[in-house]
């Protein structure tokens, strides 16, 4: 047999993810179609039907069922995968807490879309941030190559016995899922070598019955939650290790817990997650040419939250500008909140402005970002809606 050759192909983001998942050889897939996640599971079910992927593709009647099916499959020792977005993601939420609590390394693509009401099918990241406290490891992809690579890394992180937690990959709806980009597709041999079969610590089998999902009284619950928290702490190291191993094997590195761009001597640093980081990179590059010392910090792992890495990366800066497509209503942007918390009690704290942008698919333009830069230089913003159109608002 001829050795397989790594190919570079132009693929839709969703197809790239489906190819990555196929290469990871999941045993069970269960998902419910919902825009803009549909193409991922559509491609996967086609692969199963065509015999390109030997997996059980379970048809379900809702996202709650999809999540429950992969939970059960994972409990039985299978490598399990699901994908969803927005309202479907919210419907899964109850099950997501259980997956983490039961220590089941399910991988979930959280295509990012805004949430109702008002109903939107377009992109922001309010959906997956609602799962902030579930115990899921949360990674956010910047582009289609990273999304593809992240899925291969995600199974390895999830199944590491120091972690054994479900992993969620945030991927901007439409912006990534529906755009075509050239991506390098690893070979099956390479992925098999990188990602060995899943070895569960416990799994359900009639041969050796056990109970999963036990009820606990107050004398055990605290310790169980502590173990979960500790697994999240362990994930920090594992995410870094897996990113390094991936780099060695595939020659690509898109950050571990964070990624930095033009950060040496940077006085002004933009901070964001997901595809928005690419916009910021382009603008930072442009501003550098004008002689402005601007850098970009990408938050790749949102859970576990890289407090120390962020503080280290931002400490030399004069102004930090957080741009995020989410809002914790009644508080501030979620990311800004956490970055402020990271700096509490630290020395050399930079000025910090938090901007909410791009909700419900509103384009984040160069002008929007430059307006943010201007405002942040004038004064600090706790939580300003940067791309608000006042003409649409009635005076109250």
């Amino acid at each position, binding site marked *: 047999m001829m050795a397989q050759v790594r190919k570079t192909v132009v693929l839709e983001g969703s197809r790239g993810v489906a190819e990555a998942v196929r290469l990871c050889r999941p045993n069970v897939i269960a998902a419910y179609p919902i825009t803009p996640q549909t193409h991922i599971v559509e491609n996967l079910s086609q692969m199963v039907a065509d015999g390109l992927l030997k997996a059980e593709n379970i048809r379900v009647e809702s996202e709650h069922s999809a999540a429950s099916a992969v939970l059960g499959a994972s409990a039985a020792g299978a490598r399990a995968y699901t994908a969803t977005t927005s309202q479907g993601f919210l419907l899964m939420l109850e099950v997501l807490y259980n997956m983490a609590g*039961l*220590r*089941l390394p399910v991988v979930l693509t959280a295509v990012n879309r805004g949430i109702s009401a008002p109903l939107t099918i377009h992109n922001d990241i309010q959906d997956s941030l609602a799962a902030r406290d579930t115990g899921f490891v949360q990674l956010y992809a910047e582009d289609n190559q990273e999304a593809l690579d992240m899925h291969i890394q995600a199974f390895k992180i999830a199944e590491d016995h120091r972690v*054994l937690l479900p992993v969620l990959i945030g991927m901007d709806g439409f912006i990534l899922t529906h755009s075509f980009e050239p991506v390098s597709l690893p070979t099956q041999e390479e992925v098999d070598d990188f990602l060995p079969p899943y070895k569960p610590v416990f799994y359900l089998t009639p041969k050796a019955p056990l*109970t*999963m999902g036990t*009820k606990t009284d107050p004398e055990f619950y605290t*310790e*169980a939650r502590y173990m979960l928290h500790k697994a999240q702490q362990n994930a920090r190291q594992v995410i870094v290790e897996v990113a390094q191993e991936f780099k060695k094997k595939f020659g690509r590195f898109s950050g571990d817990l964070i990624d930095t761009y033009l950060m040496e001597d940077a006085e002004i640093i933009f901070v964001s997650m997901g595809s928005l980081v690419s916009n910021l990179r382009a603008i930072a590059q442009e501003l550098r040419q004008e002689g402005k010392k601007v850098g970009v910090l990408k938050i790749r792992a949102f859970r576990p939250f890289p407090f120390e890495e962020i503080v280290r990366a931002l400490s030399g800066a004069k102004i930090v500008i957080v741009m995020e497509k989410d809002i914790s209503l009644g508080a501030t942007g979620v990311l800004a909140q956490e970055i402020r918390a990271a700096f509490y009690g630290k020395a050399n704290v930079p000025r910090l402005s938090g901007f909410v942008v791009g909700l419900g698919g509103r384009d984040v333009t160069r002008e929007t970002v430059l307006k943010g830069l201007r405002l942040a230089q004038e004064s600090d913003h706790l939580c300003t809606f940067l791309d608000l159109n006042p003409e649409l608002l009635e005076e109250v």
Partner: protein
Amino acid sequence: MKITLGGVAAPGSSRLNKTGGWRVFYPEFLHIRCTDCGLCQKLCPEGCIFKADKKNFYADLDYCKGCGICAEECPVHDIEMRPEVR
């Protein structure tokens, strides 16, 4: 005993969860008017009422949560709920 990963337990381990501590009232079986109908035993949601002898039922207080269904349903009022004193 150590907590396992994900709280996995061996079969039958539910019995280690002694839920009797939740109780505020406990059932007192008077053994005066009992007709041996067995309704208390059949209706107990915990399945923790047992029969020692003819017309002689008792609750396993390790698991009885004190719901009072047995006392409510006893046709001859031979069970009384008494406050738990600890």
